[in-house]
């Protein structure tokens, strides 16, 4: 595990670079040990799959001293019992057809597979939500079947339509809003992922299990209409 300075006001802890439950739990344990240690001027943390950023409220003087203090918390981190337990399973409807599958040709070309097989691989897997980040409510999910792994786009889009389902590397996720992004877009869901005025604004939480279901463009529009008229049955998303 390496600990390094990250700009003048942050420190990065980097664990084994893989998307796995074991590493995810390590991140959570270190986060808890650090919060318990009440390090001076620490403002907040940004946990990710395999890393933890510590953000301070002012520039860190003599950063190596702080890094040494953090490394000395290893025993406490190991002793933390924090575990990310599976919470709920959600079924998310996704239309994998045009005009929603924005990167269909790039995916077909790169994978040298028919589109039906690419879609089947995406929906045939149960994903774990590892963390929220990047944008409010954006849930990072893993792990993609190996045959679907693909690099980010060489040039990120300035605007990815809200609800777009993307893949990059071993990850998959859903864009909650129209924002810039570099993931390969395989389809789109009509379900709003982040609704800040909803009682619980975030559809996903770390630890959720997610499975995708293919729907037609007609079904996509029907669900959108139900959402607008507030007749959509949200219970159907949960098992």
């Amino acid at each position, binding site marked *: 595990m390496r600990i390094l300075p990250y700009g003048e006001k942050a420190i990065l802890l980097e664990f084994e*670079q893989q998307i796995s439950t074991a590493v995810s739990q390590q991140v959570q344990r270190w986060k808890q040990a650090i919060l318990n240690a009440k390090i001076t001027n620490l403002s907040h943390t940004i946990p990710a799959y395999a890393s933890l950023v510590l*953000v301070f409220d002012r520039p860190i003087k003599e950063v190596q001293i702080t890094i040494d203090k953090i490394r000395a918390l290893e025993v406490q981190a190991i002793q933390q019992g924090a575990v990310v337990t599976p919470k709920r399973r959600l079924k998310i409807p996704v239309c994998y057809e045009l005009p929603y599958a924005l990167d269909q040709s790039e995916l077909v070309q790169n994978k040298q597979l028919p589109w039906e097989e690419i879609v089947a691989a995406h929906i045939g897997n149960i994903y774990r939500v590892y963390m929220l980040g990047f944008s409010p409510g*954006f849930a990072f999910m893993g792990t993609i079947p190996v045959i679907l792994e693909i690099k980010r786009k060489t040039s990120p889009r300035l605007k990815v339509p809200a609800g777009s389902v993307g893949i990059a590397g071993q990850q998959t996720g859903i864009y909650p809003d129209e924002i810039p992004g570099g993931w390969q877009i395989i389809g789109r869901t009509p379900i709003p992922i982040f609704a800040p005025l909803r009682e619980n604004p975030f559809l996903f939480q770390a630890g959720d299990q997610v499975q995708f279901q293919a729907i037609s463009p007609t079904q996509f529009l029907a669900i959108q209409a139900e959402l607008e008229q507030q007749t959509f049955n949200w219970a159907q998303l949960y098992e």
Partner: protein
Amino acid sequence: MSKSLTINIIRTGLQTTIQDLGRPKYQSSGIPLGGALDRKAAIQSNYLVDNPLDAPVLEITLLGPKLQFSESCQIALSGADLSARLNGQELSRYATISVEAGDHLSFGKAQIGCRAYLAIRGNWAIQKWLGSASMATQHTENLTPDSLLSTGKTIQISIPKNIPPRQLKAQHFSYLTDTSALKVLPGPEFLAFDRKTIARFFAQTYRLGTASNRMGCRLEPSLEAYSWPRENISSGIVPGTVQMTNKGQAIVLLADAQTIGGYPRIVNLTEESLQRIAQLRPGAELRFSLIDYE
């Protein structure tokens, strides 16, 4: 006893938003820090009117608005020189200014810098989200409806007693005319870049691309024949992080940027460099120079 001031927005300008020092503790939910891009200038403008240093201010970008004040009050301008005028008369920055009821504030040509900050002494009646008045980047109309200004909108401020005027000397804003290379620190993936790429990155004179905004500065040109062998696992982003996209384009991430990213992080701007880049106009030239951690 305090009186109530109404600011009328007669003309919006290019991008006039309300910012404070952001909402720092929500990044683990994917909510960007937000807040003034030139934090030092925002703090200085609040100091000049004796508001709390994290009080809301107007962040005025390039083409300024036209405002009218319903009551007398005290204001201060900091950051960029956008040719501010009070009732047509040239107005000083970095000093407490007394405004009379009915006065107009307007702006002209951008002379120095990109973003000006206007502090108005008093308590701003602004709807906050997660403890901050800074304009939310998404669902703005629902979350921070008061913070994106448009013609016809008003701002209500409750005005306390005046303070003796204050001033800040030129040394406090000399960074606005500094054209030296921006100091940067090695980013988390710095050592994973090959030496040629590092050399080219620092040799290059960049221009601020026109697609730059509060989320990030896209620098031009991209590095030619650039390749990155691996797919990074997404990791936390702090303002000032410089990502290199797969096409070799450097993007300097700012306060409204995403909280997690997967492109390699080549360098991080120092706090001083962040202030300076917040004041660069699209098309401006910049270079980087590497310093190390203490």
